[in-house]
């Protein structure tokens, strides 16, 4: 099946006439120094998407390097345990490097090479996007520098080592909250400084236009496969699709191809941290208000003065105060529903999938699993729920062990 389906410029009815806007959200809120590069990127991406050589190269590598298509798996034991709707898992954890992030890193890496940019920078939270980018750079022969918050460097040590093995330089970021948000700030500063020869591979559906659209396009392979596999394996579309949302790339990747299928409920699961009521969480769609961070207008966790506030989540990949602008539009338009799952419930979801299905999910993914189990229990057994199993949990073993009071 075709694995790339670009849509730049072709605004859907739900999108505003202005490119790069999703309703009122999105835009290009960046220093002037970067604006010419964004214009260059918009053009280069548009041309690449319509070049059969580019799309054929992507498709071949998606198949042979990433291992696409990933399976759609009927999780019968999880279904039995939940006691309701049928739960299926879209197995992005089986993609090369263990998460969906590689779908986007490959696309942007190929685009960078095509644009003649030899120096790649990226930010990473959990390390999954950093590993995916380092992997693609190793394969394509590109220089790779990954910015990672100092706190995340500690809690995701195995991924730091993987990036180094793959030849990337990992730069710990010591400013601000020393997590994903600050890693993006630092990557933007690098980009401003080295814009002539540097390509910034953003890892989620965030940032200035064209990034939210471009990343969504590359990740939409997840939803397109899910749609086709549902029709082939089940005979009809699912009733609900559930995915975790940090920046929101795995969620938008699986949601977007179902946008026009009104019968399919789309549910995004944010990180509830200690509980949304405590204020210590990472759930901007559940408890934030619109603001501008990292180049786009979107829901944002901020105080009354417009300062971005620190987030809390057991999962480094969801520990981010913003969210992709298209999710903000899905929320306002009612196309998707967003809920929050706290740390304790996510841990329970993590253990649940390990024990019922023999699959160790990423802690990010565990948020979606936890909500899916609860949601499935409330629905009849005739209904179909697809959960995006966005990544595997090897990187999280020490975090989980510590939480469970064990030592490795």
């Amino acid at each position, binding site marked *: 099946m075709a694995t790339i389906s670009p849509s730049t410029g072709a605004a859907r009815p739900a999108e505003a006439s202005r490119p790069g806007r999703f309703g009122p959200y999105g835009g290009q809120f960046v220093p*002037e120094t970067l604006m010419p590069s964004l214009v260059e990127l918009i053009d280069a991406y548009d041309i690449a998407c319509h070049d059969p050589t580019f799309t054929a190269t992507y498709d071949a590598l998606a198949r042979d390097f990433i291992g696409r298509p990933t399976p759609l798996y009927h999780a019968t034991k999880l279904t039995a345990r939940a006691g309701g709707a049928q739960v299926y898992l879209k197995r992005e954890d089986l993609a090369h490097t263990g998460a969906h992030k590689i779908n986007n890193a490959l696309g942007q890496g190929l685009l960078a090479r095509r644009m003649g940019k030899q120096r790649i920078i990226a930010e990473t939270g959990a390390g999954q996007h950093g590993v995916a980018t380092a992997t693609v750079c190793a394969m394509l022969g590109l220089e790779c520098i990954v910015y990672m918050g100092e706190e995340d460097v500690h809690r995701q040590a195995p991924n730091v080592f993987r990036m180094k093995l793959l030849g990337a330089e990992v730069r710990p970021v010591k400013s*601000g909250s020393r997590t994903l948000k600050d890693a993006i700030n630092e990557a933007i*500063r690098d980009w401003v400084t080295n814009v002539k020869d540097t390509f910034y591979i953003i890892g989620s559906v965030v940032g200035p236009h064209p990034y939210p659209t471009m990343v969504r396009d590359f990740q939409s392979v997840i939803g397109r496969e899910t749609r086709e596999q549902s029709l082939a394996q089940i005979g009809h579309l699912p009733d609900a699709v559930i995915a975790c949302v940090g920046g929101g790339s795995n969620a938008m990747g699986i949601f977007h191809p179902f946008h026009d299928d009104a019968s399919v409920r789309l549910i995004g699961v944010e990180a509830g941290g200690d509980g949304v009521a405590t204020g210590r969480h990472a759930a901007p769609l559940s408890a934030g208000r619109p603001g501008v*961070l990292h180049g786009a207008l979107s829901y944002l966790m901020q105080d*009354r*003065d*417009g*300062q971005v506030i620190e987030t809390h989540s057991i999962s480094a990949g969801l520990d981010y105060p913003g969210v992709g602008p298209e999710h903000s539009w899905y929320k306002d338009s009612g196309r998707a529903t967003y809920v929050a799952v706290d740390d304790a419930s996510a841990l329970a979801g993590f253990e649940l999938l390990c024990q019922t299905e023999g699959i160790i999910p990423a802690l990010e993914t565990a948020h979606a699993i936890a909500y899916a189990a609860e949601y499935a229990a409330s629905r009849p057994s005739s209904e179909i729920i697809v959960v995006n199993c966005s990544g595997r949990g090897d990187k999280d073993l020490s975090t989980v062990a510590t939480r469970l009071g064990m030592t490795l």
Partner: protein
Amino acid sequence: MNNRPAQHQSRIGATLARHHEAGTMALVGWQTIGFPTIQSSRTLVPALIDGGFDLIELGVPFSDPQADGTTIQRASFEALRQGATLSIALDTVRTLRSDGITAPLIFMSYYNPILSRGLERFAIDASEAGVDGLIVPDLPAEESDDLIDALDRVGIDSIFLVAPTTPEPRLRAIAARARGFIYCVSLTGVTGARQALPTDLPDYLARVRNVTNLPLAVGFGVSRPEHVARLRGIADAAIVASAIIDRMEHTPPETHVQELRTFAKSLRNAADGVS
């Protein structure tokens, strides 16, 4: 992109025009509101003006200063710890005005604190407090229509940045919206002191001159008297920011008034060609 309406000359415009007529270069200084304390601007802004700065940029601290290098970042984070906010920045301007400061005061703020307050409300509050201009480093021309409208209604100059990477059509579009002066970012990078200014600065400034009659102010990396001296004859104003914060970080707070006055004088002499 709309053309600027005919307006009476702003305080910024008048100050720069005065220098233009005298054949001298203006100096733009910097204070981060709330650094090192909420009160410090009240004595340090007059010290900068005393020493020879003509216009003052007041940095409104933000949690995510993506266009700033380490110096302004540190000052910004410390200012936030001190409790500085946009409201406190407005209070500071009111206090400076009631203290008799008449020099143009320009806010430099990232977009979100302004958006969070509301564009209309910000414009009215800033105008009433005595703010003359606004620079928003993460708001390119494409996103600025609503803010320019709000600022035009109250007579605050919208100051835009151009960069060495800005191609001519963009330069023209930005110049058409700019008020007060054009902020020419000297280099491709973030704020912060540098050893030397880029060698191609004269060509770059000539490209900007070619599209506008507005005064050109050069900032980013301008940190020493010799840098200011190099800008004589090619720029209308030199903007010095991080170098001021650097001085403050390396000296005890009780000496800051004297330190900044002395530093300002050395820059003033360089601007005037006095050795």
